[in-house]
């Protein structure tokens, strides 16, 4: 083994040690201890059943379930020679022809505002992307509430980010759902919160590390169990939402689900819906959202062929074909 590798090897060993140390406390807790802690301080762990067909048929008769998701793709080279396209889809289980799609694109070449070179370029891009996407997703969701009056809307991802990235539109959707009685939930594949860890830290003074919920909950819930997070705990996170964690598939990971505050009475029902729609041998995402996700995706091929077809050749080559693309 050469010098480089042996240095790297030492680094990896160090990392292993650090992680062991950091998680010493957490791994020291038995499943039983952890669960009882969660039960008393975070929220009740409850076993849920799948919804039966008659219940689902009822949803169908009341407008079905709408799934909402968005996607981004980017073509070209480094700033500013690229285009980003955004697309959002609201798809209803019961309206065959009722898919609602919106799309938008952005390129710094044309839309560019005054360039602030001090601000990190990547952050701007990230923000704009989030904003564009959130806006499009909310737009299709709003339209679908108006058009389909579904029983419920499942948004792909937590609801909180809409408030951050597209506040006005979010408020509009929220009010509309409340008025029309459409249940609005967000399903979070990758939970990034640390509610439980923070609670542990608060209660047990010895703990100083930050533990994330996904680490803590990994393997701790049984298939079909959920934690309905207590109000006072979730409020620390953000006002206006109620949340659950649930293990919806046989995979040991746990997903999250938000619902708007005013509809919290439906939280268990919606968790059960998510559970029902999740294949047991999956990573935990309801199939409907996976279907929407797949459909909304803009593949590289489609992206490229669209550019090639609808941009004049000289423009396309001059601006968007990077040296690297040319080589391949």
């Amino acid at each position, binding site marked *: 083994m050469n010098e480089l590798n042996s240095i790297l090897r030492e680094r990896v060993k160090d990392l292993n040690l650090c992680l062991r140390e950091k998680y010493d406390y957490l791994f020291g807790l038995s499943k039983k201890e952890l669960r009882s802690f969660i039960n008393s301080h975070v929220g009740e762990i409850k076993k849920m059943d799948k919804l039966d067909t008659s219940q689902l048929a009822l949803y169908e008769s009341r407008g079905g379930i709408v799934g909402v998701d968005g996607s981004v793709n980017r073509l070209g080279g480094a700033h500013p020679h690229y285009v980003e396209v955004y697309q959002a889809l609201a798809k209803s289980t019961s309206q065959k022809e009722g898919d609602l799609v919106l799309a938008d694109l952005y390129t710094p070449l044309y839309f560019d505002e005054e360039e602030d070179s001090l601000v990190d370029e990547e952050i701007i891009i990230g923000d704009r992307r989030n904003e564009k996407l959130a806006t499009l997703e909310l737009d299709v969701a709003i339209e679908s509430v108006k058009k389909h009056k579904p029983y419920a809307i499942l948004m792909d991802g937590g609801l909180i980010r809409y408030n951050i990235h597209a506040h006005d539109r979010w408020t509009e959707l929220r009010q509309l759902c409340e008025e029309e009685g459409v249940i609005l939930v967000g399903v979070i594949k990758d939970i990034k919160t640390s509610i439980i860890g923070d609670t542990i830290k608060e209660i047990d003074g010895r703990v100083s590390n930050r533990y994330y919920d996904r680490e803590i909950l990994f393997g701790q819930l049984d298939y079909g169990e959920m934690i309905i997070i207590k109000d006072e705990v979730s409020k620390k996170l953000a006002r206006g939402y109620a949340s659950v964690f649930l293990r919806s598939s046989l995979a040991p990971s746990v997903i999250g689900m938000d619902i708007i505050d005013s509809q919290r009475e439906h939280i268990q029902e919606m968790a059960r819906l998510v559970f029902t729609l999740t294949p047991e041998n999956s990573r935990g995402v309801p199939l409907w959202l996976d279907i929407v996700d*797949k459909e909304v995706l803009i593949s590289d091929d489609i992206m490229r062929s669209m550019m090639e077809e609808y941009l004049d050749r000289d423009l396309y080559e001059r601006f968007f074909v990077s040296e690297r693309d040319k080589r391949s």
Partner: protein
Amino acid sequence: MKVVGITTQQEVYVGSKDRNFRINEFLIIEDPYQDNLLGEVVEANTYNRYIPLNIYGDFVDSSVLESLKALGYNIDDDTIYIAKVRLLNEALYPIQTGSDVRIPKFTEVKDIMVKSKLGEGLVLGVIKNTDDLAKDMDEDLKGILYTFEEGALIPQNDIPYILDLKSMHHYPHIGVFGGSGSGKSFGLRVILEELMDLDIPTIVLDPHYEMDFGEGAPYLEGTGRDFKDKFKCLQVGIQIGVRFEDLTAQDLKNLLDAASNLTDSMNNVVDILFKPKDSYYSFSNRLQMLTEAQEEGSLDRIESRITNARDEEERKAWIERRDLFINYDKLCPYNSVRGIIWRLRRLGNDGVFSKDIREIEDGLQQGKLIVIQGSTRILQVFSTYLLNNLYHKRRDYKDALYMKAGADYFPPFIIVTDEAHNFAPKGYDSPSKSILKEISQEGRKYGVFLIFASQRPTLLDETITAQLNTKLIFRTVRASDIQTIQEETDLTVEECKRLPYLRTGDVFISSANMGRTIFARIRAALTTSPHTLNPFDELKERRQEDDDRFLDIIMAKLPINDIDLAQVALEIEQETGTTYTVKALEERLKQMVNRKHIRKEETIFGYRYIK
């Protein structure tokens, strides 16, 4: 339906959300930048991006799909149908992606689908997957046949496949290939029915005794027809044979060789000993006498036979033997002469020389189908002679016509045979092969055509195979045969891949005339082969008949006491001539009890059989 994906000038993909494609169906592509283009589906696929239930590597269980269904979403609705379409004629430019695609109207495909007028071609079946096109088809093409599928007669929904008989003039000869049970014989039967319908003079070599057209097919339940006045079955050695007096030395050698191969020396013997106008008797007698002389061993001994002859007749006979001996002994070795005698007798015993081919010629003149039956060996022998004879008659007539000389009319005709590889095998010589080869190469000029069926195209002489301009390919499983087919036809790789899976009676028809392969189903034959009876049904039927006959005899005699068995056996013998031992009779009665035709009853005196 729209053109999707990358296109070329020859091939496109067509996608549809709601219409499943079928292989070999025709589609019209409406490219805005060029004329409408006709294409044929060569590959049909369905695609559902969510099935096989696998999304990002997750496996979807059916309960989730059921739940989605309850919510109103059926995953099957997201299936899309994709067809690979090959254009019949190359396009000027690659097809515009996104072009509309539609089903053609009948008039747009008529010219390529129906090459022959009714009444002029052979209506062999239907072109598969053309039901959409057939809806606005000319009325006279509708309802002209049935197909027989899954045990039921199916009315015609598709465009009929009519084999253009006239085009045989330019594209002669037909091959029919396929594995066991694939529908060759059935297909041949349909071809022959059509030939009879058109009164085409035809010779059928039938080693299986299956080409009889006297019986309507059972599924037609009496509504079928027979062709009784259109065909004749003739058996070699019974109704027909070779007139020995008409033979040339070459004919004779061919015949003897067909009986069993001739050595050079034997060939020589025939050349030397056979005299024109010889009869079977005179020729075989000459051979016989020569061998008898040779058996004496020397001229001296023959001379002493002459001297010691008991009467004048014997003396004369030995003189004759002596002359033969003097003239031929050196030229004709004893063993070779014996070999010729043996072969000659064998043919004679088969009856080959006892009749002539008059009935065949007459039949052909009347436009009939003549079925020639005999064992494969006999047919090999006989057909060599027959086909030479008939072919030359036809050729002489045509040549004479050409030279403006008078000649007797002899009609064009078609030669049909199953198991053709027996008559024209690849790799070794057989007497019938040379005439068949000649006909395959020259027959077109004289209006003599071949229809050859074989399980094994690979075993058939390749010169002949190459001359078969139309080929019907049924299910074929053997790789070497598929290989041969691929080389000898315009079947595409995709089509060849389908060969092992074809249903019985489904067939690819590749013809130089059509310029492409047609996928067809052979129609229901109107007649049936005489021995399609399942052997097990046959057993059952046979047993039933035996039982009935036996019951007829004994019913009147019931009740029969065990002590009377001997008496009953005697009575039966007197009445019917059939002898039963007591034991055999009892066995038979027990059988009848077992089959519940009669009963057995215990009495105080023993037992007895009653009704």
